[in-house]
């Protein structure tokens, strides 16, 4: 190395090259270090929280605990003034029945509010379970990305909300949500969806659906608080988000999620 620089006979280049190498090594080291640090974060956080001083809300739904009573969907409609008609839901419950022949029967009559019956005869059932659905409060949410006026936004604490006074009703967000969580409110004529009961959350009250769940199948918590029961649950259970390949940064983690569920 020193030989090659001396043959060039230029001291200036020599120092600048050394400087360059130094910078390059530092940058590479920092990048690798940072990436390693970040990769451990990615396991827990769907994306980087924006504001360190705020909580970063996530949701857990334990499929093994859901009994399909539909109280959550009912409570949500009561709490959030969602129209009663069976076309508008901020949360709903699906009943999956995998038959012995491998086919899957999915139903959600009136979002599960009136409870469920099993239409498939017992001897044909391989397995059956309930899956509550709600907004995934994605941190890379496709609905926020596509809103042409920015009426949909992510709060610093990780909740996806809609500014009803700003929404132009183009419905692009409804198209962009892979989970079918959005609808156009028939009276307000703007996009509508689960707010994680943000009005309750800000008063340290649990969202209505979670408050009412008799089995505690739904939980919410601060993903940033590593010592909380919420994060401990995530550590001790094998959880999965819906449609991970779409990389929406979903913060709704399902425990015991079966492969049939979309």
């Amino acid at each position: 190395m020193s030989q090659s620089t001396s043959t060039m006979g230029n001291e200036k280049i020599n120092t600048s090259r050394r400087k360059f190498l130094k910078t390059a090594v530092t940058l590479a080291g920092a990048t690798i270090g940072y990436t390693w640090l970040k990769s451990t974060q990615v396991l827990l956080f769907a994306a980087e929280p924006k504001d360190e001083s705020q909580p970063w809300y996530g949701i857990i739904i334990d499929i093994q605990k859901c009994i399909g009573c539909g109280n959550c969907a009912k409570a949500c409609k009561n709490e959030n003034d969602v129209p009663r008609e069976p076309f508008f839901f901020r949360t709903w419950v699906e009943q999956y029945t995998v038959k012995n022949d491998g086919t899957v029967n999915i139903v959600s009559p009136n979002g599960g509010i009136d409870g469920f019956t099993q239409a498939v005869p017992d001897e044909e059932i391989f397995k059956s379970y309930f899956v509550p659905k709600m907004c995934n409060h994605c941190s890379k949410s496709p609905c926020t990305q596509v809103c042409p006026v920015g009426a949909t936004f992510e709060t610093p604490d990780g909740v996806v909300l809609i500014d009803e006074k700003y929404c132009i009703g183009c419905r692009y967000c409804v198209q962009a949500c892979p989970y079918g969580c959005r609808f156009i409110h028939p009276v307000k004529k703007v996009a509508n969806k689960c707010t994680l009961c943000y009005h309750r959350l800000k008063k340290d009250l649990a969202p209505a659906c979670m408050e009412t769940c008799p089995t505690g199948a739904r939980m919410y918590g601060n993903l940033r608080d590593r010592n909380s029961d919420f994060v401990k649950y995530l550590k001790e259970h094998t959880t999965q988000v819906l449609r991970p390949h779409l990389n929406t940064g979903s913060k709704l983690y399902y425990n015991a999620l079966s492969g049939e569920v979309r």
Partner: protein
Amino acid sequence: MEPHYQHLYDILAHAQGYIFPNEIDLQWGILIVVYPFITGLVAGAFILASLERVFKVKILKPTYQIALLTALSFLLVATMPLISHLSQPQRAYEIMITPHSSSAMAIFGFVYLWYLAVVLLLEIWFDYRHSMVVWSNEKKGIMRYVYKVLTLGVSDITPRTLKWDRKLGYIITVVGIPSAFILHGYVGFIFGSLKANPWWSSPLIPIIFLFSAMVSGIALVMLVYMIVSFIRKKSIDLNVLDSIGKYLFFVLILDFTLESLDQIHRIYEAEESFEIIKLLVSGKLYLTLFVAQGLIGTIIPLITLVFLQFYKHKIRLQKTMYFVVSILVLIGVYSMRWNVVIGGQLFSKSFSGFTSFKVGLIGLDGTLMAIFWLLLPIGILTFLLWLLPPWKMVKEEE
């Protein structure tokens, strides 16, 4: 029970399999089918006009102004189906003053304005300025002032200025071609960029939109040229039709290839959405995809256009065939828009079922409204052809 809900209960009764409860109501109806159809006609008509100008295809000269005015007429209406489809149309301006930078839709207003104001209006103005100055001197009464206003007070028609008119018009055409590509490729991107919907999400969609736009625009100009000649009792120049027909054939082949590639790719990769899409195309979209778009809109026109390149006997028959081909192609492209927009919403994102779609007749997003938005540009075109008749333009020596 409100009538709106009754309509939804009817759809619920016709839903098949499992759909998410919020998916019963189709979000984008017939107006959003009309919107890409209209913008496609604009882009296509403009590209045909540019062919004549930039590549100096002399034979297309009689269609140049017709194509430009057709593009303008449809462009003026292009945003209307969009705005009338919004559930808060009075807030539409927000998209211009507070556009959200990550939204594909937010840029539409700017792409649109660029295309309207910078490309089309300027090109037409430079093209017609000489004639408008002459007409403002020749005409009497109010029309004299109308043309005077249209010249924007630039009444200099010395050869040097006219040369500049031509030069600037040429530059705008050159800028206009990529603009037309952007305008319609962009409309495709609005659909193609939605990862939630496997029927839309494809990098080929913008290109397919672009080529189908060119197909529809070329067919429309051919049709307008024939109708205008018929109304003016002038004979239709068969050489013009043959020439447009040749372009139509090549673009249609490209369009067909791209769309086939898109489908073959889907079939071969057969991702998780494959089963539901297979059911979609073989069921609810069968008539509009295979019959209207494939057979009527593509295969029959392609065969006819090949035939017309060789068949040179009965002139009347040839003209009739071109007339029919242009209508078939327009039906085909409209069906393509339908298949994309409506087809993409018929299956559930749970990939486990279908909702159904019934077009309403009345209301802001009903069939009558869609027909109105399709007829309005024809009305505007009639007016523009009367105001700025290409056949009465002042001839310039090149």
